[in-house]
């Protein structure tokens, strides 16, 4: 799995990984009973859209990259890619050449020996990048990186400089574009929650504080969870603020003795001993990994039935956006893209002989 050959052949070389770049697919399911979290991409809708834009199956592994600094290069063959988010992403074919912006919601064909630079993830904290034909090795049913147990990724770790990713086949057909049906949702400040399973461990005042106060995202946010700060949420019994451990899932909101909520995310442990006042509904979880420290958030209680209705509606909207993906229509054909198209044709002809 640890390839050390230089950037050549059909692949991508990681030049610099940035703050944190990991390979993530949908996640590693079915092992929570053994203490293994799901991991997986924090923004599954973007994973599906990005993969659809490059002609992959929607569940294919993507790179999830936090903040700026990720820099990668193509080898001897062109690579079709797409990014989702709000990034400042640029491609550059030769050192000294002009840098061309790479916009989200659209696939691009990177010519051989092209460098892709994620200068920043913009107003949001991470971006998702898909590559056509990305090859990853699956471990316990997933390629998702979970470094704590050395699972998935490249040798069980986050991406690091020099890592080589393999691409199976060059993409064919036109570059594609889509609409992003979730971006506005991800920019919002509302976290819908279903109260429970331990809402009865909190006083009426505590529940009121939780649902009617502003909480700010702290700087303590990672793939394991997000700490928020605000007025202390009051427990019912101050002497018994711990519980006998039960299951945690992404979205569980633990409130330890200090009354400050922690929303657990994809890499969090699978059980815990703090009472859980509520659970953030699955489609609102991406906000926590995307928004910036200091942003104000509000918890809003919804019923399970209404939560499931919203989840189904968003799944339908996502599927609709995927179904309406179409060839790029109003593309300004730059020298780079023209060149890339020619190279693609050449490679395709070569392979078909």
């Amino acid at each position, binding site marked *: 799995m640890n390839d050390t050959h230089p950037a050549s052949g059909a692949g991508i070389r990681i030049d610099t990984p940035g703050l944190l770049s990991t390979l993530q697919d949908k996640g590693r*399911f*079915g*092992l*929570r*009973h*053994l*203490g*293994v*979290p799901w991991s997986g991409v924090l923004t599954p809708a973007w994973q599906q859209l990005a993969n659809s834009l490059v002609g992959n199956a929607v569940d294919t592994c993507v790179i999830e990259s936090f903040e700026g600094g990720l820099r990668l290069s193509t080898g001897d063959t062109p690579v079709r890619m797409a990014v989702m988010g709000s990034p400042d992403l640029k491609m550059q074919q030769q050192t000294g050449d002009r840098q061309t912006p790479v916009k989200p919601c659209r696939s691009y064909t990177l010519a051989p020996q092209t460098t892709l630079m994620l200068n920043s993830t913009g107003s949001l904290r991470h971006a998702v990048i898909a590559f056509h034909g990305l090859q990853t090795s699956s*471990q*316990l049913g997933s390629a998702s990186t979970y470094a*704590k*147990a*050395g*699972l998935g990724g490249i040798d*069980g770790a986050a991406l690091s400089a020099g890592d080589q990713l393999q691409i199976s086949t060059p993409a064919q057909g036109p570059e594609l574009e889509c609409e992003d049906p979730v971006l506005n949702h991800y920019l919002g400040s509302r976290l819908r*929650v*279903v*109260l*429970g*399973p*331990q809402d009865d461990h909190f006083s009426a005042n505590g529940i009121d504080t939780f649902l009617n106060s502003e909480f700010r995202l702290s700087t303590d946010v990672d793939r394991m969870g997000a700490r928020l700060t605000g007025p202390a949420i009051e427990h019912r019994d101050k002497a018994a603020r711990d*519980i*006998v*451990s*039960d*299951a945690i*899932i992404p*979205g*569980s909101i633990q409130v330890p003795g200090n009354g400050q909520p922690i929303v657990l995310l994809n890499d969090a*442990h*699978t*059980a*815990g001993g703090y009472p*859980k006042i509520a*659970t*953030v*509904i*699955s*489609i609102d979880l991406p906000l926590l990994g995307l928004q910036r420290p200091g942003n104000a958030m509000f918890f809003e209680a919804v019923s*399970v*039935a209404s*939560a*499931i209705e*919203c*989840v*189904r509606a968003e*799944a339908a909207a996502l599927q609709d956006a995927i179904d309406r993906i179409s060839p790029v229509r109003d593309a300004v054909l730059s020298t780079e893209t023209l060149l890339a198209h020619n190279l693609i044709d050449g490679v395709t002809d070569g392979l078909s002989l």
Partner: protein
Amino acid sequence: MHDTWTPLHAGDRTLVLEFGESIERDIVDQVVLLDTRIHAAMTAGELQGILETIPTFRSLALVFDPLRTTPDELVGQLRHLNSGTLEQTDSESSHWQIPVHYGGESGPDLDSVAELTGLQPERVIELHQSMLFKVYMLGFLPGFAFLGDTPSELHLPRRTEPRVRVPAGSVAIANQLTGVYPWDSPGGWHILGNTPVPLFDGQLNPPALFKTGDTVSFRAIDTAELQALKDEIDKGQFQRSSLRQRDL
């Protein structure tokens, strides 16, 4: 199984079936029994939409696909789950005998545990070895097993000064539980000893040695046997199955 559990909501894709609020072997047995029944029903094509189950000390969490089912539908189906047939749950569980090097560098808290309990260190080891433990749940870390019950003579609250690093393989106690650490981790339990056997191996499926409901006993080994086992593991000759006991 009627009315032994209470359904609690945990969002749009998890339903918690709660059996109790304390750590008791009887509750764990009920959780494991229902879990086994549910998996048998899933194998038979029932309970469509359940993705996975998570047994804990107090509850069984059911993770489901909200595009395919709802908590109401699942609760309705669970109330009608055939409670008759399944009594051979023991066949699902394994019994493991785990070699432990007690005391010294392997068990830095053995002497303080002896002091706090007023027992000789040898007696602490003897008591800990005498117990047939059950795996109450896994969690905290991948493959970390909470075992119970530790003999009552050894019940101690957690250390007032948690350690920044509890080494992988540590066998440690707190209150009524014994924990076995598959990974280096911070921790506040009293470390009695260390086992060299791998408790979690991502190359194997299942990756964790134990599962909830398994039984476990510990066997004291000396330094020579510890070294021999370590050598065997380093050479890749160690087989997990050598720890499984056929007869209790």
